Every structure is written in structure tokens, then in C-alpha cells.
């Protein structure tokens, strides 16, 4: 004979597991946003980490292309070649590795696998790492895409075709009175449409089109500390670089980003890009 409390207990337990019919979330396919940029709204940076030996990276590149078609200029993408997957094949035209790339991934935290990217160098709630797998990119991108900023960055490039040199100034100021301490500026050069070898799920592909590849850093990857910013006067920096002849100047972009650095908070507050030509 079962004792009475036991019967009750066994009847209650299954109820503990069941629940009423749930109200599902609403999914509405996202449409491309307006390409006009509101100065008060910050752009979003996606830093994708990988290399020519990263077999999963082309899938990540396709997803980034899809996200770029939705968010257009609001989204600034760089592809950082680093780690063991970035060691070039003997057939590669270029070695895309840079010491600054290695420093950057060391600072942001190495991932458990590739492809991987950080969004605004932010550790999102519920995550223990900045490194996000592709399935997480759209979700966290949507979370920060309307983020406001009080920072205005301008890049004014000047390219000398004869000497193949690039010179540019970066102007930074605040758009409203506020105090933003511990800001760091990072500047880099990225190149698009490089045709070179890449490992893909079908093998080594010789004519893979590499996009957003970081070619050079003008600052340390950890950035340079900015002095006090104001709404009136620009904080100005000037940089010069002689470009290697094999780089296609038509496909080069200068990227400037400003990030916070407070304890473990490295959030990017604003990022902009400007074509060299």
C-alpha cells in the first residue's frame, strides 16, 4: 500500500514540470536600415578574428556581408589575422599577420574556436568573453546598433600618388558637454578585395576575395590615451605612411575607433571609416 502523502507527492511532481502553453516571441525579418548616419548614434565595430587557414572563417565572412547589407555604414568591419590559423601558406601572396593583431587578441581574450568576433569589444550580459561565435553576432549587434555617443571623429586623408604616401589627420571632439575619462584612440588601415588563398570547407581556394583585412596600425592596438576632450576644440592627430606598392589604394580604408578602458570594460564608443581615395 502506498502511503497517502506519497501518492500526493508523486501526483504533484509531474505538475512541477509542466506549464501552460507559452506565448512565443515575435520574429519579424529585419530590413535594411537607412544609410544616413545620425551623428548622435554610434557606429558599431565588428572585429572578426581568423586567418587564411581558418576553415570556418569564410562562413563568418558571408554572415558579415549579410549584416553589412542590413546595417550599411553603421557597421564597421575589420578582419584581424592572428593565431595559428593565420600562418600563411606558401602559395599566399601576403602575410596578413601583424604584431599588433596578436597584442589585440591577447588583450581581448583568446577564443575557444574560430570563426569568432567581438562586437564593440564589449562583454555582453550573460557572456564571460568578448569573443562571440557567428550565431551570436546578429543578436548582440541589434543590441548596440542604437547606442548613442557624444564623440565626433573626423578623418581627413590625403594621398600622394607620386610618392605613394598617405597622410591624414584625425579630429576628435565632443558633441555635447559630458565627461568621458580613460578614452583611447586606435587607428588602422584595412584593405578590401584582396584575391588570395584561403582555406574553405572544400579545400584551399586560390581566388578567395578577402575583405576588411587589417594591413597596418598607426597606433598600438591598445590605443593611445586621449587628453581631455571638449565640445569646442578638436583634438587633432596626424599620421603618415608610405604604402607598399602591392597594396591597392582604391581598396584601402582608414579606421578610427575610440574605446573606454576601465577595469575590464573596453567598450568601443565610436568608430568611423574613411576611404584613402
Amino acid at each position, binding site marked *: 500500500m*502506498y502511503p497517502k502523502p*506519497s501518492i500526493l*507527492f*508523486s501526483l504533484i*511532481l*509531474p505538475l*512541477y*514540470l509542466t*506549464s501552460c502553453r*507559452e506565448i*512565443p*516571441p*515575435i*520574429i*519579424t*525579418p*529585419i530590413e535594411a536600415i537607412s544609410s544616413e548616419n545620425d551623428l548622435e548614434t554610434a557606429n558599431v565595430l565588428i572585429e572578426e578574428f581568423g586567418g587564411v587557414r581558418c*576553415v*570556418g572563417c*569564410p*562562413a*563568418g565572412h*558571408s*554572415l558579415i*556581408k*549579410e*549584416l553589412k*547589407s*542590413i546595417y550599411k555604414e553603421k557597421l564597421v568591419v575589420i578582419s584581424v589575422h592572428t*593565431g*595559428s590559423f593565420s600562418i600563411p601558406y*606558401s602559395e599566399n601572396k601576403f602575410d596578413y599577420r601583424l604584431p599588433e593583431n*596578436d597584442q589585440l587578441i*591577447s588583450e581581448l*581574450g*583568446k*577564443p*575557444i*574556436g574560430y*570563426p569568432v568576433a567581438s562586437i564593440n569589444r564589449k562583454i555582453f*550580459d*550573460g557572456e*564571460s568573453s568578448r569573443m562571440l*561565435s*557567428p*550565431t*551570436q*553576432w*546578429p*543578436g*548582440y*549587434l*541589434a*543590441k548596440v546598433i542604437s547606442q548613442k555617443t557624444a564623440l565626433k571623429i573626423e578623418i581627413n586623408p590625403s594621398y600622394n600618388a607620386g610618392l605613394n604616401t598617405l597622410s591624414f589627420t584625425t579630429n576628435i571632439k565632443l558633441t555635447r558637454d559630458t565627461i568621458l575619462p580613460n578614452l583611447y584612440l586606435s587607428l588602422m588601415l584595412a584593405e578590401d578585395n584582396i584575391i588570395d588563398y584561403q*582555406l*574553405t*570547407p*572544400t*579545400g*584551399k581556394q586560390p581566388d578567395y576575395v578577402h575583405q576588411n583585412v587589417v594591413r597596418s596600425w598607426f597606433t598600438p592596438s591598445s590605443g593611445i590615451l586621449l587628453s581631455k576632450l571638449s565640445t569646442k576644440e578638436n583634438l587633432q592627430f596626424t599620421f603618415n605612411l608610405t604604402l607598399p606598392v602591392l597594396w591597392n589604394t582604391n581598396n584601402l580604408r582608414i579606421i578610427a575607433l575610440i574605446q573606454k578602458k576601465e577595469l575590464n570594460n573596453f567598450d568601443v564608443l565610436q568608430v568611423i571609416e574613411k576611404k584613402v581615395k
Partner: protein
Amino acid sequence: MPFLKLIFLLLIWILIPSFVPVYGQNTTDSNEKLNIFGQFQTRANFFLRDSMIGAANIPQYDYQLFGSESWLNLQADYQGFSISLRFDFFNNSNLLVPTDSYSDQGIGNFLVEKSLDKLTFSAGYIYDQIGSGLIFRSFEERSLLIDNALAGIKLKYQLLPDLYIKAFAGRQKKQFELYPAIIRGFQSEYFRSISLGRKKLTWAPGVGMVARTIDDASMNNLVSTLQTYPASEIFIPKYNTYAGTFYQTFQYESFRWYAEAAIKSKDTYIDPFAVTLLKGDTLVGNRYKQDLGFVFYSTLSYATDVIGVTLEGKRTRNFSFKTRPQEQLNRGNLNFLPPLTRINSFRLNTRYNPAAQELEEWSWQGDIQLRLSEDLSLNLNHSGMQKSAEEPLYREWFLELTKQSENQHWTVGVQNQLYNQQFYEFKPGAPTVKTITPFGEIEMDAGKGKSLRIEAQALFMNKAKDLLLNDYGHWIFGLAEYVLNPKWKFSVSDMFNWKPGRFSPKNIQEKAIPLHFPRFDLYYQPGNNLFSLSYIKQVEGVICTGGICRLEPAFSGVRLSLNSSF
């Protein structure tokens, strides 16, 4: 504040009856002594950079140079209470992410347990499983830094002497934090013994159910991702997923039959092999999907003094069950799918390990243990894994003979493996690996606590159409271990890549070179403390522990470890 008052009254109502029996139990058990026992484990790695074998480009090799992990377990039993506590320390450790450095410390586990009549309750970090773990298993696998403890409560009630029910609720542990998803479960097991004349049939059925509710942040992230999918691929994700299982064991004389069937309601998971057409691009890789899932698993065994036969089979479909859909690899697993492959122990026999597949798998294993004479026995094993009826993923044939005499123990055998490296290690274009690995071991007892053990193995690799040896090519391995007395033990071994293959490390002229991977170990065990000092060069490879696999990079360095129990 009527609501708060109501909550307060509710708490009083719950707590008072809980404490009264505890007090009563204390009185009856007042003679019990306090027992405290525990274990301490520490491991310190001194990293020595060796870019030739791939032990480089991670912080430990490049500039940190040192990393360590330590665990201190304490358990106290007193008057029916059992309290356990574990401190975890990680200093520049490469256990969590083999390519990165992890530092943190804190209480890795605490648990309070108490039995009151037929009820046992537990609160804290709980390790448990339902059936063979198909729908729920919370466990710790220290060598891979997996700790899937459920932080919550568990109640177990012995309804009848041969019937119990169990319920639990909580959240999964994530290092020193918790995942936000709520997990709850129920399990009941029964045992029946039936006499059939002089013989006895036993039947032990069990049933379990687990439910998981995704947190809002994870759902919002999932929804935002699905919004970017083409309309044909969009689905409505579920907050709640339910998994149920029925399992049973029949035992009759020398026969034993275990069978388990588990199903899972529609759940969102990542398909790492999804093929998607996206604006002209063919995208192969992670994509969210939602499906029903199931696993069927069965083991039939027959064992006498002379022969032991085991047959196992498993069919898995869409059974990735994680604390949230965003988790990948070995992170956030709520369940455990047992691998149906032989657990090998010799170094070269363990070079290729197939991980159990969560989304699509047919697997089987047959094992015969035969005692040929008083001192001679034979083990024949075959296992296989298949994703579909097409190309095989894994096959293994294993034959081993062991001979035991008064002071010598001989083992000889051969293993034949087929391993789809392209699939398991996601290496495009990697041809299927086929190996033949003969092995032998002799252990000689020299008396007075002295003994010598010698191992020898060779791995012969197949060639692909381009006439290159696959993966790392041919290997040989030798080991000598000498036990001087119960306190001191020495071991020296070398794994030599004598005929390098297509993926062997190459020099600057892009030529694969034969490399040695030596290892020296010194063990000292005075009493309950075991010290070891090792110099290790270890090749990269898939490391599996208890069926959980991970691609581990090469290791080069000195390791100092201590294991103590008290």
C-alpha cells in the same frame, strides 16, 4: 505590503516543518562523530616554447611562462549531515581554453545533504544523472575543466523500499558564475526481483524528465539572429524544452540487458554543418535550427567465468541539449551521450578518438572477453560510427592477448582504425586516416616491491592518392617504467614521428621533419601524498576523457603535480 507578508508566511510555513525533523534527527544521532576528509590536487606547468611542434603563440609560451591549477575538496559528515566544499584556483591556466590563459579563484563547489526518514534533500552544487545521462548529467571532468554542476536543490523520496522519486531545480554552473536558464527535472526508479524456480529475474525500470527555460537575454539574442535569416529559414523558438527518458535493466542469470529511449521536444540548436545559400554565397557552418530529437541506446551483455560478450547500439538524432542554444562545443551541456567506442589506454591506440555526435549518429560496439586458459585471455572488440549510410566515420578492430604468470604480465595485440579526420577535426581535404597499430607490454615483478614495465607500439599510417602519408604519418612509441619501491617510480618514454605525414610540422623549407616527443616522469609517494615531476613534449591531438573530446594543442614544458588525500 500584503504580498510580502504572504511571502514571509509562506517561508515560515516551508521552513518550520523542515527544521523540526532536522532537530529530531540530531537528537537520535547525537553519538555520531564529526568526520572530516578531503583531497588536494595541484598542477603547475612551466611552459617551454617550441614553435616547431606548435607549442607557441599562446600567452603561457610567449610571456607568462607559468600556469597552475589547484583544487581542495573538503567533506564533513556529522549527525546525518554531509557538507562538502571545494576551493578552485586557476593561475594562467590553459585548461579552460587550451590556447588562452585563465585566472580566477573561488568556491567551486559546496553541497549540503541531509536524510530525514525517507526524504533526502540536497542544496548547493549538485552532481547527478538520469539513466545513462541522455537527458541529464551534471558532472565534473577536471582534465578538460568541465564542471556542469547544477546549482540548486534536489529532493529524493523513498516511496517504497524498491521505489524512489527524485526532483531537482536550479541553474547550471559556469566556472564561478551561473548560466541564467532554469533547469528542473524529475526521476523515478523501481526495482523488482522475480523468482523463476531456482533462478531469479530482476527488472529495474526508470523514468525521467527534464525541462529547461531559456532566459530572456538568450531568447532576445536568438530572436535578433533569426530576424536576419531568410524567411524560409525562420522558425519560432521555444522558451521551454522538455526531454523525457525511459530506461530499464533486465538481469537474468548471466544475461543483462539495458535499454534507454529518450525524446526531446522542439528545441533550438546550432548545426555546425548547415549549408545555407545566402545571396549567392554558399555558407557552410553554424546555423540555428529547431527540431524534435531522440536517442535510442541499448546494451546487451553475457558474462561467465570463461566468456564475456557485450553488444551495444545507439541511434541519435538532433539531441544537442544545452543550457542555452548559443553554447557550443563542450560548454553548457545538460546531457551526456555515451560514446560507443573502446576506451583504449596505450598511447598510440588513443591517437584517434571519435567524439559522440549530437545531431546524427548510428553507432555500435561489440566486445568479447575470452579466457583461453588459466593464464591466457583474449579480448576482441569492434566499434563503428556512421552519420548516414554513406562514407563511414569511424571503425575500429582491436585484438589483445594477455598472459599472466607468477611474476610476469604480458599484453600483445593489434588495432586497426578508420577515422574520418575531415569530419571529426574539420580539416578540409584531409583524407580518411587508416591505421594499423601493433602493441605490446610486459610487466615484470622483481620482488621486494620492485617492478619493471615496458611498452612498445608502432602506428602505421595509410597513404592517400597523392602518395603522402596521412595526418602525421608513421609513429613508434616506447616506454620504460621502473618501480624502485612503493615510494619511488620512474618513467621514460618517447613518441617518435619517424615517417612524417602531410600534417607533420614542417621546417622553413616546408619539409616535414621527423620529431621526437619525449617524456620523463618521476613519482614519489610518501604516505597519502603523491608528488610527480615530469618533462613533457606532447603532440597536438584530440583528447577524450570519459567520452568528452577536445582538440588539444601541443604541449612542451615541465609539470609538477601533487595529489593528497586525508
